[in-house]
Structures are given as structure tokens and as C-alpha cells.
């Protein structure tokens, strides 16, 4: 598994699609799941035996939290998803480098996304940070 992180609109997806032109795209942020089960069904249905780009990972975490899933359960799903695949690129926005929000929900979203990234980075074969469209390898 490959993990890419970086600020918004830094060209992460464009670069990934250039690098893996035949990859399938998974974007749970855009799929607007109606509930927890539907969200998990999207994960379940994602292809297994070809390159897969999981875009906007942060929005998946946001959605899962807002549907009442606990971080431990979200991580369990993410971990087994990653374990089942080798040809996987996870792309996530850096969302933690701002003033800590007053709203508990917003704080939790940033914090838990960050923690999830730490764990994904441990699993990942490589981690790159995309800055102005340029990948910088940090693992």
C-alpha cells in the first residue's frame, strides 16, 4: 500500500492517475452513503485484484464519524481493507494544520484522521507528501 498526503489541491489525484492510468477510483466522499451499512458496502464492493486509488480518505473518516462509528471500528475496517490489497494507493488531504476548532465534532474529525494516518503510514510500503504537485518521499 502507498500513502499520499498533502494539502488541498496540490495535484495528488492528477499525479496518481498519471502514474497508475488503469487504476480504479474509489471516492467515498462523493458517493454520499445513506448510512453506516451503505458506507461499508462501498468498501466491500471495491475491486481487489487491480490497482485502486482511494481518494479523499479524510472524507471517508468524516462520514464514518458522522454516522456514529467509533474510531476503533473505522480503523478495523480500514486496516482489513488495506490488508486485503497490495495494489492500493490511499490519498488524503492534510487537514490537521489549522487552529483547533471550537466544535467537538470538527476537532474529533481532524484528530482521528491524523491518528488514522499515523497507523496507515506504519502499514504503508511508502509514504509521500505531495507539495505543489511534487511528491516528496518521507518513508
Amino acid at each position, binding site marked *: 500500500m502507498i*500513502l499520499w*498526503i498533502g*494539502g488541498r489541491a496540490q495535484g495528488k489525484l492528477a499525479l496518481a492517475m498519471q502514474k497508475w492510468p488503469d487504476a480504479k477510483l474509489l471516492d467515498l466522499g462523493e458517493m454520499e452513503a445513506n448510512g453506516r451499512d451503505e458506507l461499508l458496502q462501498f468498501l466491500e464492493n471495491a475491486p481487489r485484484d487491480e490497482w485502486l486509488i482511494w481518494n479523499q480518505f479524510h472524507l471517508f473518516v468524516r462520514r464514518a464519524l458522522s454516522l456514529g462509528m467509533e474510531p476503533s471500528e473505522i480503523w478495523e475496517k480500514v486496516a482489513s481493507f488495506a490488508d486485503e490489497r497490495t495494489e492500493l494507493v490511499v490519498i488524503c488531504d*492534510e*487537514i*490537521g*494544520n*489549522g*487552529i*483547533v476548532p471550537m466544535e467537538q465534532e470538527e*476537532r474529533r474529525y*481532524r*484528530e*482521528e*484522521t*491524523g*491518528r488514522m*494516518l*499515523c*497507523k*496507515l*503510514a*506504519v502499514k504503508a510500503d511508502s*509514504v509521500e*507528501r505531495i507539495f505543489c504537485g511534487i511528491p516528496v518521499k*518521507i*518513508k
Partner: protein
Amino acid sequence: MMILIVGGSGCGKSAYAEKRIMELSHGGAMRYYLATMQVYGEEGRRKVQRHVELRRNKGMITIEQTRDVSEALPKMQKGSKVVLLEDLGNLVANEMFGEDGTMTPWETAADKIIMQLRQLNSDLDHLVIVTNNVFEDGIEYEEGTRGYLRALGKVNAELAGDAAQVVEVVAGISLMVKGKE
């Protein structure tokens, strides 16, 4: 030696800082944890108590110092000591925004913190400081928060100048910005 550790929410900076402080105290120095967070409510208190105990099991003594960090020194034993201070984001907020609603000008608060931390560092074997990257959300805040951002930015930059090492933590990965590990 001073080490400055920078990162965003949930980036793994605390775990990394703890790892460094354990390494730095191998020679038998006393380990202190300077907690700058203001604790509110019963739930917050309970959470903090749990963390205090977790650290005690690692041989770390917690000193709660939400402001005036130089006052922490007399609370420590004489002899070799290493200190992990967490974090500057809270310290700057506490120095700038009084509980009674008063506000200290950002530069006054920043200069005070810089001076006190330099003083504290000179009395320690090692000082590991955790600080926050809160500068990259593109939001135009009102004046108070803008001042806060300037204050924390100044403290970070000045201390980074002093520090032997500056480390950014991203997704649990430490990146040396200054110095060698």
C-alpha cells in the same frame, strides 16, 4: 539541548516527543512533564488524571503549569533533569487570553514565553518542546486569533533558532527540519 517538535492534530508528535525524552534520560536524569493545557470540567479532569498516571508508570512526573513556565523550575528536584513541555499552542493561548476576558498583546505574550523558556532551558539537561502547526487552514480569523497566530509563530521561530533539533512529525513519521537525530 533543546528539541522543538512541530506537527498538526493527531500527527503523532506526542508519542515521538515521549520517545525522545526517554532516550535523553537514559543516564538517570529525572523526567518531568510540563502540562500547559488548562483543564475544564469533571470529564477533562478525569482524562488528565489518566494521562498523569500513565506517565507516572513511565517514571515521569507531571507538573501542571498553564502559564509562567519559569515557575516550574522550583517545583523540580535538584540534579539532572529532562523536561517534556506540551504544548506551546496552549501556553500561548493561556498567556494571551486571561480567564477574566483580558487580552495581553501578542508580542508581549510571545516575548515573555521565549524569555522564560530560554531561562528554563539553561537550567535543564534537556528540554523537549511540543508545538503546534496551526498555520495552514487558510481561514481569515478575527483579530484575537490573528494575534494568537502571530504569537505562536514568533515563539516557534525564535525557539527553532535556539534548538539543536527541529523535528516535524507527519503521519507519525519524524522529519528532521534542523540538526541530526
